[in-house]
């Protein structure tokens, strides 16, 4: 009974001290909200606005129909934004990082591409300049370019005026080789058939409607995609992940402060005064763990409450799961603080080391940028960190909209780390008492 009274008094003391330090309290609450808001905006905000287009420069030197049609197709694409430039301007802007990439369609590209479609002639080159810091975007630009070139060149082959000339040239060439090469004979048959198709479609143009005339007659994408975001339902909210990450970071920082508080109490003689009372070290540490976990959990709830009200973040999964992940993470944070107190020699030295370790854990845990952007080995490695599980657990309960079963592994891992940190710290405290 006496121990319980002491335990309650110690917890109460910690809560009063935390709440009475208004400046610290404000910073602990404001910083994750500010940074969460900023990173959330960068990661796509609340999903209301369209994703930003990739800005790409275009140097269209080729004045053939094919060249013009490729340029028109690129300008019409929804994923990139085309800016027509001279060659020098394009090189300069990509070099300075003002453009992610630039496409150069050289003079004569259309003719050369048409001629190369059914023959082994040299294929013309399109030069692509790109910012080396944006290699991920290069693949997107290449994909769009490939689609536009294939559609435009093949359409010209099947129905364009230049296509007639290209096919006639290829028929003559294949006829010359047909006697010696059976494959050339087969190609010749195919080209003759294609030539008949051209004559028929050009004959139809006089009677076809405008809509039919405009329809592409070449190769087209043999499929279309139906894009469906598999997350919380209505929309992905970039703020949900960033608030999870920033909450994890700043709550861990608060855990460091709690640990440093023990070291300061030792230095000031307060620790000895507490232990001079008829209570055990375990009671004092338990009180510290509970108060720190309560504060951490409260901070997490307040931060997410703000995210829900202002940034339209939704806890689309299990609310119980969200609270469970939060509570287990809070407990892990509290024991992390104890670990710092147990092994820290001075408050100053311990703070520096603990902040460094925390930032590494937070970074590798995917709190700053999502873990799926990491190399595979790093993704696997980061599964050994409690921060990764905390962020993933909060993500699962917010924008991914998963049920409590997805929260349980994250909770168990947090509890495991809490048990590990707590027992190691307690052991060290008891050893130091001797």
């Amino acid at each position, binding site marked *: 009974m006496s121990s319980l009274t002491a335990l309650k008094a110690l917890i109460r003391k910690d809560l*009063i001290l935390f709440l009475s330090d208004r400046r610290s309290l404000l910073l602990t609450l404001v910083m994750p909200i500010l940074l969460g808001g900023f990173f959330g905006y960068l990661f796509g905000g609340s999903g209301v606005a369209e994703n930003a287009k990739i800005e790409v420069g275009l140097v269209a030197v080729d004045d053939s129909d094919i060249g013009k049609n490729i340029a028109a197709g690129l300008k019409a694409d929804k994923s990139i934004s085309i800016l027509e430039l001279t060659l020098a301007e394009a090189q300069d802007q990509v070099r300075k990082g003002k453009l992610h990439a630039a496409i150069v369609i050289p003079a004569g590209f259309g003719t050369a591409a048409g001629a190369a479609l059914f023959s082994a002639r040299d294929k013309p080159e399109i030069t692509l300049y790109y910012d080396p810091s944006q290699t991920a975007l290069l693949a997107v630009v290449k994909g769009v370019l490939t689609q536009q070139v294939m559609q435009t060149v093949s359409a010209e082959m099947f129905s364009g005026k230049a296509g007639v000339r290209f096919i006639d040239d290829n028929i003559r060439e294949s006829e010359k080789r047909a006697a010696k090469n059976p494959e050339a004979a087969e190609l010749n048959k195919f080209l003759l058939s294609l030539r008949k198709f051209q004559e028929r479609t050009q004959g139809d143009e006089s009677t076809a409607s405008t809509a039919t005339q405009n329809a592409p007659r070449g190769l087209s994408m043999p499929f279309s995609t139906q894009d469906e975001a598999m997350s919380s339902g209505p929309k992905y909210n970039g703020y949900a992940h960033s608030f999870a990450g920033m909450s994890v970071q700043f709550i861990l920082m608060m855990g460091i402060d709690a640990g440093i508080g023990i070291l300061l109490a030792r230095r*000031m*003689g*307060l620790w000895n005064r507490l232990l*001079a009372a*008829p209570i055990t070290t375990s*009671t004092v540490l338990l009180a510290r763990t509970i108060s720190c976990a309560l504060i951490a959990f409260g901070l997490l709830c307040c931060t997410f409450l703000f995210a829900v009200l202002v940034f339209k973040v939704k806890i689309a999964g299990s609310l119980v799961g969200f609270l469970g992940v939060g509570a287990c993470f809070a407990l892990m944070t509290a024991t992390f603080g104890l670990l710092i107190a147990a092994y820290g020699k001075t408050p100053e030295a311990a703070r520096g080391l603990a902040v460094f370790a925390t930032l590494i854990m937070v970074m590798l845990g995917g709190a700053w940028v999502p873990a799926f952007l990491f190399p595979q080995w790093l993704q696997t490695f980061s599964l050994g960190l409690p921060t990764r599980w905390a962020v993933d657990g909060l993500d699962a309960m917010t924008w991914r909209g998963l049920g409590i079963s997805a929260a349980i592994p994250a909770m168990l891992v947090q509890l495991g780390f809490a048990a590990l940190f707590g027992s190691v710290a307690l052991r060290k405290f008891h050893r130091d008492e001797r």
Partner: protein
Amino acid sequence: MTTPLLKVTGLCKSYSGRVAVDEVSFALASGQTLGLIGPNGAGKSTTVSMLCGLLKPDRGEILLDGQRVNQGNSAAKHKIGLVPQDLAIYEELSARENLKLFGALYGLTGDLLKQRCQAALDLVTLSDRAGDKPSTYSGGMKRRLNIAAALLHDPQLLILDEPTVGVDPQSRNAIFDSLETLKRQGRSLIYTSHYMEEVERLADHIVIIDHGKVIANETPEELYRRLPSQAALNVELGDVEAVSLAALLAGIQARPGVTGVNTVGNSLRIALGAADDALPMLEWLTAQGCRPRHFSTARTDLEEIFLTLTGHSLRD
């Protein structure tokens, strides 16, 4: 001594092979004040830590009112109040909140806790500032609150570890007033200090520790009796030329009750076996033609006792 309240037997404590406390033994009767003195690093704080159950002795035993003092939630700890050398109070909790916390650590709750807080605040005359945070207090007020926090559970034994460090004379007097009140109330005190005058003012019994060992364990009177001189007579001579100094010193040395004499400038410092010897000595000096311009008597202090016992000063 009747059955002692506190009995310390053969305490030993070493850190990494360095002996901090070596076979320390002493006892304290109920209602008495024990002065634990020694220079810095003598082993006082380690001894106090073991007395309070903060450190486990390597050997030896501490019995308080028949109960062994141990670490953790030892029952004997309920009977001990510790006033640490450091200001072990929460600067950002009000004085009353501080006291409520320390009272609750001893299981006090409700009205009893409130009453004890008020009584402690009254004793250290901080009632009018009870709602203020110690961060707004003077150093002396913080020291008084430090004492009040140790009194809430009404301990039989109050251990004060250098409670006046860094305190101005006025606050020191206020602290001593509080301690003397506690002493009058019959509370047992252990007072550690390296200020002899503080210990002399309070202690009924003195334990002197040096290099981890007890080198004296007796009442102040018994300690004083160890010295050849009990009092000193300081005489500033008006006309030194009028007398032969060498003859005068030889004459003084031959007087009954004189245990020593030396000169400092125009002054004589005469060590006497008893304070009663001072007046005949002054009369003799006058008869020899020495007219004292100024004279004073002083009791031999604990500082000199420490010097005699250890061969070095308390604050070396």
